[in-house]
């Protein structure tokens, strides 16, 4: 547009005072009654002043609910969009963790947890001086084992005066918390005997062997008896 064109357009656009300007902007001047050159401006301003309602108000319930949440006394009141869904999810996760931290001790005190959990919580609380009922039976043999460390077994094996069957029985009995019947039944394996069937379960054989200094031949018979002949325990020492 040239300067000449600008001048022509300006000549068709009236100068308006502040009051007319205010009434135009407030939508109080009908386009047909607007000053020369401002008819379309009045229409544009009227169109702009009518914000679409339906499409925004369709989510009114959701937004009002969010507002109520941020207005509630317990809600975060400073900064950010505290009512946004993501923040609510994080808050919920925090509540769950807090609830778990508060709830588990209560359930433990009431002896209402599953046995392994009850036992674990009992041990933890016992360390800090809080008495919580424990399960009557330890969940695994190793936890309440009378000789729960290899060092103790090793000490027996290296310091006892017992020898042979008696030594093996002592070690076995200690290691099993008195449950072992080693040395009480059956007879020693023959010097050249071997387990009749190879078995993957050779657990304890090495331990007994090492602990007894190779003299735990009596335990083999007991193991063999209790395993139905499938145990190879101690067979290498016989």
């Amino acid at each position, binding site marked *: 547009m040239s300067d000449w064109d600008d001048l022509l357009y300006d000549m068709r656009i009236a100068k308006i005072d502040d009051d007319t300007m205010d009434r135009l902007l407030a939508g109080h001047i009908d386009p047909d009654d607007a000053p020369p050159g401002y*008819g379309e401006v009045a*229409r544009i301003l009227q169109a702009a002043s009518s*914000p679409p309602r339906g499409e925004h108000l369709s989510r009114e319930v959701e937004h009002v609910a969010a*507002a*109520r949440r941020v207005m509630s006394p317990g809600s975060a009141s400073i900064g950010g969009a505290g009512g946004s869904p993501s923040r609510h999810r994080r808050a919920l996760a925090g509540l769950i963790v807090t609830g778990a931290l508060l709830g588990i001790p209560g359930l433990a005190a009431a002896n209402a947890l599953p046995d392994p959990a009850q036992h674990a919580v009992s041990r933890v609380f016992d360390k800090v001086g809080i008495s919580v009922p424990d399960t009557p039976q330890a969940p695994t043999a190793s936890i309440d084992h009378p000789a729960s460390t290899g060092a103790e077994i090793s000490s027996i094996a290296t310091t006892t005066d017992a020898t042979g069957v008696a030594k093996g029985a002592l070690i076995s009995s200690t290691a099993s918390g008195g449950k072992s019947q080693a040395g009480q039944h059956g007879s020693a394996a023959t010097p050249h005997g071997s387990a009749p069937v190879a078995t993957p379960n050779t657990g304890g054989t090495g331990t007994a062997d090492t602990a007894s200094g190779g003299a735990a031949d009596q335990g083999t018979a007991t193991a063999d008896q209790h395993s139905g002949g499938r145990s190879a325990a101690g067979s290498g020492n016989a």
Partner: protein
Amino acid sequence: MSEFQDVLIAAREGEGWALGRLFRLTYPRFVCYVGAVAPADAEDVAADAWLDVARGLHRFEGDEQAFRAWAFTIARRRLLDLRRSRARRRTDPVDPGELVAAGGAGNVEEEAMTSLGTRWAIRLITSSLSPDQAEVVILRVIGQLGVDEVAAIMGKRRGTIRVLQHRALRRLAQVLQGEGVTP
């Protein structure tokens, strides 16, 4: 006590009907105001501004006009936050001449009945005017705010706002006439 004061008191107490009234008074206008600058973020920014309004209700005192000014101050703050993060004024500049042609200015009255007409009018304003001029017009038209209130919100003097709005409407008139809209 005015009806608006009743609404305000009830809204502070969390009454759904009252919060709904305030929501309808503010949110659609927030969307238009923010949408004039950042259409893609309009609803998110408007939602954040609405929650800020809700948070601050307990400390607001005044009539409906003061409430609008206060609410738009909040919305503008949210908009400035967005603009700082985006570091640009307009996200999608459009040639005003194209908008005039596309909008069918002869049917503005009919278009005004639809959201399309509103959006078109706002885009024409923002595309035709400088950022300051457009913001003055939008705050005055969409926010239904007075010169003093707009001056306070934008941090400018009253006389500056007067000059900006005069230039803005004259520029709009030039754009619309330049496209041959007015017979």
